[in-house]
């Protein structure tokens, strides 16, 4: 059971609205987003329910849900939302807030998704571009799933699908600096 009314002002709603630029209060729970979302069946709470949870001020529950990690930012839902709510922006806002406030959903799937993105960013930071083979390898190592997709690898490599090297940027330094400034901006927000 959830007890409402004791926590005072719904600051979570405000945080999400400010960060996303959307107004979650406009959601009238029609569910069109849920039927649209390709991954709603994998989410702990599909978009419509996330909206309601934000309205109820359930900060922890939202942060710990896997929904915002599963959101692919495909914008299918927002394209159909009758109230024109930018749902992916709301998902992103929840995700960024959760990251900022150090809430960590430690389920295997979320860990993997998060790892993937971290490694990807790391690639860019290091090479300025994505190094696909290295990334896949690192992903498998870091998620302790060494043989994932290994059956695809020989074929893909053979067909030249995945190149064996990457040409790093000339101005790799510029990219590193960019990362540093962006990270600082992130902290000063």
């Amino acid at each position, binding site marked *: 059971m959830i007890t409402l009314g004791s926590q005072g002002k719904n600051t979570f709603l405000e945080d999400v609205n400010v960060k996303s630029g959307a107004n979650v209060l406009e959601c009238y729970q029609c569910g*069109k987003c*849920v*039927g649209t979302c390709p991954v709603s069946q994998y989410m702990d709470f599909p978009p419509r329910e996330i909206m309601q949870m934000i309205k109820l001020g359930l900060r922890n529950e939202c942060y710990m849900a896997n929904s915002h990690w599963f959101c692919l930012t495909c914008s299918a839902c927002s394209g159909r939302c*009758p109230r*024109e709510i930018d749902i992916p922006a709301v998902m992103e806002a929840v995700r960024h807030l959760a990251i900022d406030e150090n809430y960590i959903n430690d389920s295997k799937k979320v860990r993997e998704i998060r790892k993937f993105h971290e490694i990807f960013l790391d690639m860019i930071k290091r090479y300025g571009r994505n190094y696909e083979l290295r990334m896949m390898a690192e992903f498998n190592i870091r998620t302790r799933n060494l043989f994932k997709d290994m059956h695809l690898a020989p074929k893909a490599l053979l067909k030249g699908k995945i190149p064996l090297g990457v040409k790093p940027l000339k101005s790799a330094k510029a990219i590193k600096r960019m990362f540093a400034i962006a990270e600082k901006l992130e902290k000063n927000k």
Partner: protein
Amino acid sequence: MARVGVFVCFCGANIADYVDVPQVVEEVKRIREVKFATEYKYMCSDPGQGMIRDAIVQHKLTSIVVAACSPRMHEKTFRKALSDAGMNPYLLEVANIREHSSWVHQKDKKAATSKAMDLCRMAVAKSIANEQLHEISVPVTKRALVIGGGIAGIQAALDIADARIPVVLVERSPSIGGKMAQLDETFPTLDCAQCILTPKMVDVASHPYIELIPYSEVIELQGFVGNYKVKIRKKASYVNFKTCTGCGACWQKCPVKVPNEYNMGIDKRKAIYTPFPQAVPNKPVIDAEHCTMLLKGKCGICAKVCEKGSIDYTMQDEIIEREIGAVVVATGYDMWDPAPYEEYGVGRFKDIITSLEFERMVSANGPTNGVPVRPSDGKVPKNVVFIKCVGSRDEAKGIEYCSKICCMYTTKHTILLHHKVHDSHAYVFYMDIRAAGKGYEEFVKKAQVDTGTTYLRGRVSKIYRKGDKLMVRGEDAQIGQVVEVEADLVVLATAVSAPKDNPELARMLGISYDKYGYLSEAHPKLRPVETAKAGIFLAGCTQAPKDIPETVSQASACAAKVCGLFAGDTMKKDPMVSTISNEYCSGCQNCVKVCPYGAIVTDEVPIGYGSKELRTVAKINEGVCQGCGSCVAICRSTAITLAGFTDPQIINEIVSI
């Protein structure tokens, strides 16, 4: 010298909490002309008004200022108090210290108080220049115009005519009846629309006080309440209605087939046609856009077969003029086009139809003999999905508002489907079931139980094809699961929208319309059938979506308003109108051009006293003038005065702060 009385209201705490009322009273007392000033808790209450009455007599006041709420609120109330004390009511001025001060400067009592003082000073200054004014009375033409012959127009026309007031009913299409003539059975009682409507249509045609002008449109309205002049364009029908007997020989033989609007294009009609068998008048018209005789001079069959010689290919549009005193606008509604719902495959999938198409299919006199069929293959559907709120409550793709009738007609459709196809199953995707009306919830409950319809709470997300089925996908929010229904036919409860040409009509009539195109009532709660323009009333869906019971109530209310307006031989009118002084008028006629009501005409007067030579001046018809003041500001000779808003009054306000 003027003797002004000032009454400052506390409005309970509304003013008193944010404006120092006693200080305001002290301040106004310092004004030379103010002979009496006081404060009171509620000026609009009986004792408050009593104070005004007493002070007028006791202090021999010559004008009154009430500092209280907006004049739009209680000006009338206080004017009446002045009248009751034997004073001319137009010697009143209201200083709006609530809406314009206490409510909007709640954080700064000092500033609010000082502003209230200024507002009082301005009102006092203006009131000193006020003059005695008297209501104007104008003669009325006791004939009403009804525009639109749907159930709203029909009902209004009949009610007015029954009071023995002549009515001119103008209908755009060849027959009256409107959308109701297209319906099968109607909620919440399931009586057949035709059975209850057609007798009324016949009554209209035969009523001695109704002049029915079908296939026509109003093109111009001039004048003012009680004294309008209307121009009507009667479209050429190419059939002489006086001699035509409605035998039908012509349309049986006509070789040209055209999609039938009455049946939502599901079948065809001829180029010469009556819209439906029970049409009133039951005389055909030739559709000039499709008749090959009129287009290319080839055919002429209908003229050959008509025994009465009623066909006349040379007929022209005709302009008719009528003098009338009041107008009822009843132009109904349009169905919203669901094309923006691309995710439903609207326009690509034949087996998605609209509610009105469904209505035609299940109608006994419909194009499919009363049985719903799939447009793609003509098969009778088993699984039918009804989707509600299509275009309604959807600011992204459609319209923000709730269309009000679709919840109920969809319920009705599940019953009709069940009646016509016994082994069918209905699925309804809904967001809410809005069944607020007499007997409505009961109707919904009975339908749900009797038909076993599956209700799914959620907006449909997508429709796609699988074989010859349509897969309808949406969330059922009750169980929090995405569901797919395999449908043979999908019916969209498309939104009700305002008639496309309402804005144009509104401009022509000089009334206003809202952002959706619905015509605006004067007040949403207390004057729901009047418009802001005196003598023009609204009935039916042209004002907002509504069902038949509500439409008919509104139409009857319009009739009562018209009858009330025509109760005397003359009408009273606000005296805030303009007058022109002959001495100053140079005859430039600038004012004639700007008057939006055509109230200013030219006149000839002698150049000087006793002189025989004449010169041109402008003259205002006070019956027509609405008091906008355009002419006053444009006149370079300052010849025009607008009572209630004279230059001295306004200048006094300006300089008195």
